[in-house]
């Protein structure tokens, strides 16, 4: 069967994302890539932990952070992870319209998160907390900014993926792509959970 052919309910494999060697390779390769990404974020977290109290004359994290806003951002992102799970469930049932719907919701929630983050950064800059104001500023914007850039990349990725495959159903070629995006999105979400804890909660209490 051609990998680009639309799958029907009759020939739909149990794991369309891993039904071809290409799919299997992508599945494993992407998990490994996320392992590398973990080290990347771990290094950024380490840097942040080393510098988080070095705010000099500028405002400290405790003075800056507003938990209600960050909580809202967290809820948006966590919910988007849930909706991407629904999308993958639809993928496994060959329900392409439902998959598209859930990924669109994921996309909107991701955009909402990005909007809040931009609002937050602009607000901080007005408070005198900038990338160059102190080592704390550099470390904060690097860590949170790297995460934000990952969200942005994910938004561009799923937009392209949905647009390109809008009328093509689920195929052995695009099933791994949908699946990998969901994996990526969960990873970005997990990183945010750590940022919420390490940057914002720990910043508030000590």
């Amino acid at each position: 069967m051609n990998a680009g052919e639309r799958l029907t309910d009759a020939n739909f494999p149990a794991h369309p994302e891993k039904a071809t060697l290409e799919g299997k390779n992508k599945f494993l390769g992407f998990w490994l890539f996320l392992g590398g990404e973990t080290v990347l974020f771990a290094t950024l977290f380490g840097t942040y932990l080393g510098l988080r109290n070095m705010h000099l004359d500028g405002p400290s994290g405790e003075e800056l952070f507003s938990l209600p806003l960050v909580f809202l951002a967290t809820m948006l992102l966590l919910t988007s992870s849930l909706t991407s799970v629904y999308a993958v469930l639809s993928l496994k049932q060959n329900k392409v319209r439902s998959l598209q719907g859930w990924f669109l919701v994921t996309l909107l929630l991701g955009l909402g998160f990005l909007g809040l983050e931009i609002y937050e950064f602009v607000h901080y800059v007005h408070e005198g907390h900038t990338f160059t104001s102190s080592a704390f500023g550099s470390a904060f914007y690097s860590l949170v900014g790297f995460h934000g850039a990952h969200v942005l990349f994910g938004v561009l990725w799923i937009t392209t993926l949905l647009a390109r495959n809008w009328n093509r159903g689920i195929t052995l070629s695009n099933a791994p792509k949908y699946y990998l995006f969901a994996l990526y999105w969960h990873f970005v979400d997990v990183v945010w959970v750590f940022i919420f804890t390490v940057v914002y909660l720990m910043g508030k209490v000590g």
Partner: protein
Amino acid sequence: MATHESHKKRSGLMDWLTTVDHKKIGILYLLAGGFFFLIGGLEAILMRIQLMEPDSKIFTGELYNQLLTMHGTTMIFLAAMPIIFGFMNAIVPLQLGARDVAFPYVNAVGFWLFFFGGLLLNLSWFLGGAPEAGWTAYAPLSTVAEDTGVDFYVLGLQIAGAGTLAGGINFLVTIINMRAPGMTFMRMPLFTWASFVTSGLILFAFPALTVGFFLLMFERVFDANFFNPDMGGNILIWEHIFWIFGHPEVYILILPAFGIISEVVSTFSNKRLFGYSAMVFATVLIGFLGFMVWVHHMFTVGLGPVANSIFAVATMAIAIPTGVKIFNWIFTMWGGQIRFSTAMLFAVGFIPTFVMGGVTGVMLSVPAADYQYHDSYFVVAHFHYVIVGGLILGLFSGLYYWYPRMFNRVLNETLGKWNFWLFFIGFHLTFFPQHWLGLMGMPRRVYTYMSGQELDGANFVSTIGAILMGAGTIVLLINIVISASSKYATTKDPWDGRTLEWAMPVPTPEYNFAQTPLVRGLDALYVEKTAGNGEMTPAEPVGEIHMPNGSILPFILSLGMFIAGFGFIYANWIVAGAGLGLVLITMFLRSVIDDHGYHIHKEEVEADIKGGRA
């Protein structure tokens, strides 16, 4: 079945720019890495000329610092690693019985990123001067430097490093997912095992360097304050990040050499490798311990006796699996029918040389003693014994061993032996006296010394040795030129090989094995030879073979990164944006253009088999 799929045959330069074939990418890596090896070697010889006499004034101050920085950086990132990747590309899929690597397109991206990154870094020589903060680029040396040298270092290596990471993931997936039937993990040749562990180290070590480079770039280009104590920064963060990457990097380099030596020693002793499982275990253990020792580069920083002791013990522990390997190679040779080909000479020369580097390594791992050795020529002698005496001898061995498979010709053995003896004697002449230079107090990274301090003689001998190493390398080049101008093809199995890469005709067909082979034991080809078959038993009938299409996009994507690199170096956001835009456009094109590759038809494969071409 789709029969309308498009497949453009390209030739000449376009073929090499668009290839996704692991064999061709292996050759590209070897050529580019070999080119940078010559540049790095030239830089070394220039430094040795400056140090030949006391109070010499040929390459002083800034220029000398540029030479030493570029020598280290070029040799590690642009010579050693790409040559390793060259062998991994050319050999690992063959040893596994695979048609190609898991992601041929990503493989090409990895090569071109490395190539353009290396090019960017070396262009610094012509654009305001090379970096001069050492290959370690310690802050604040690297952050306060006013000229653009360090910017070229950061951007060039960042781009090359991304390519390396892509290559690492590629080989992990290839080895896990694409082994031929019967090729269990514990039947894999040692070189493939070493490539597997090295790729794992790349995966977990390089992202730390990526972040380190980002921080340094932010510091220099966007005025961030990670390493600026006046603004609350901390220079130690750079040292930690660099060595969290940097120590595993040492094992990324040496493990493939261990793999090559294992193959060569076994083949030319006509014996299966002694203690195969212990060798595999030792390789994995070295890879694991490699992540727990980075502070031994920072003993004199002042982290305290507890931290220093823990890292000292961890460092010493690495001597155990390494010792296991040394003894296993010796036991493999014991009682074997040894043939001293050039490849074997390099492998045998490797063993005592590497042991000497290992012994000084254990000496350096004692923190109290390290306070004396630190930043002296003793350290220079140590790491050249393990990297040149270990890795480079291993790579030479691999080159002579696999040259017939990669280039369809054998290198001349007489010239090969000249190459070995000149390089081997030159190596020991260069670096053995440096132990004494260090113990007598000569610091590393200085461009001169005064006479009357008993440093003259050893420095002179060291320079003579470096020239001999250069002569040995020139013999190799002559050997390559001679072999290239001779047209004869070798037999497919010139060394009486034991592993799968020798089971195909020369030249290796583009699809490797016409029929995926059935592996029936360790040293798969040797198993068939002793069973009287002489060749591999196929695991599948002759059929259509699926192949990926070549693509120019990896080249363009890497070119985009190269352009963006210039933009960041000169803080020109239009150029940076254009470069990154080109990268995003290439990624976009790659994802929206469907390319399912093409098929080689059964009839063509059958014709190849009948004609002895497969």
